[in-house]
């Protein structure tokens, strides 16, 4: 039993040390977006995706894009040094509200935390809220 406790403690310390070393070597990189990167990322996830309208969040960590083929609305958002994409349809979005220039989104997918997409302009937020409702 004592050996197992030592093994447990050694493992926890080992994991912490390796994560520390990773942080030291690579820092904590946060991915940033531009419209081209976001569209390219969506083209990977959605074969045939054709960029229509798009809007970048003020912190450049999220983008909302429209597929010109069918008017569907997509979110590309940074997670760590990578990106995650989701379709923003009624089937996917549990609740969407607007607070000035920010859109607050909650998803049915419980692995996707609630998101606040803040734009530079209130009109942009209003426009994308309407696009989402239509999609």
């Amino acid at each position, binding site marked *: 039993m004592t050996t197992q406790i030592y093994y447990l403690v050694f493992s*926890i310390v080992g*994991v912490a040390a390796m994560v520390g*070393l990773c942080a030291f070597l690579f820092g*904590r990189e946060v991915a940033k977006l531009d419209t081209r990167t976001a569209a390219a990322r969506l083209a990977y996830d959605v074969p045939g995706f054709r960029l229509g309208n798009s809007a970048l969040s003020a912190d450049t960590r999220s983008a909302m894009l429209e597929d010109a083929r069918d008017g569907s609305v997509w979110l590309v958002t940074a997670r*760590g040094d*990578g990106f995650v994409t989701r379709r923003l349809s009624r*089937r996917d979005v549990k609740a969407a509200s607007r607070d000035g220039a920010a859109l607050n989104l909650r998803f049915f*997918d*419980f692995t996707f935390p609630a998101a606040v997409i803040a734009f530079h302009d209130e009109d942009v937020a209003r426009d994308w809220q309407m696009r989402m409702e239509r999609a």
Partner: protein
Amino acid sequence: MHFDPTQLATPAFILLVIAEMLFIRFSGRGRYEVRDMATSLIMGFGSVIFGTAFGFIFVWFAHLVMPYRLMTVAWSIPAVAICFVLDDLTYYVWHRSAHRIRWFWAEHVTHHSSQHYNLSTALRQPWGGFLTIGFIFKTPLLLLGFPLGMLALVGGINLVYQFWIHTEVIKKMPRWFEAVMNTPSHHRVHHATNARYLDANYAGVFIVWDKMFGSFVPEDENERPRYGIVKNLATFNPFKVAFHEFIGIAKDLASARSLREVVGYIFAPPGWSPDGSRETSDSIKQRWAQFRSAQSPAE
């Protein structure tokens, strides 16, 4: 005799991860991300805890099956070698099922949930094996009479082998090696979500199984693999990483309206839905092929 290859190899795993991090830091060949790596290591650590806590289920199952074995295989080097090869074949069958049957995918998805591909990804192991009871794929070996200890030994060696192939640092091994063995190049394809690479290269140690059963896809130098899952997770929370697909199944079952839907949500390929509104790897590949042929009709 207690000989656990995985436990013995752990110091080497740690040293190799450190060596790979240093190499990538100074060469730029590959990627590491702190939270992603932390999640992978916690998943690896947790899988040992869950494996220890629930390992008795496999032992109990083995003792149920073993009285019906055809013979008793004695310990010898040829017996271990044969057991290793056959165990790798059962691994192939389990692994293919784990990508084609949602119940087994619910466990295995954990291992694919990182968008990175480095040695720490190898340690991103599932916690839900006790739920899916994937060990039933070992039943033929138990019925052939291989002792439980021998299965544990060859299974451990198999797992240790698969560690080093989770890297972008090694491009290609010698041609003869690539022809027979699973390699970083073959396994990068397996972890990729590019439509052309989906559902390929299920091998553990010997890539020949994929070549025999038609699931082999070589890595194309012109199409770099993109790693992760079709619907990438937006969380690093280890509990969500470990159990999200099980919760997804439970939610779907709660909304099922017929026995067909119940069976489909559990046993159909991941992404199956009664109205076909969700994406499966087959539908993605089909759409990709259509898009590709529309782009270049002469091909």
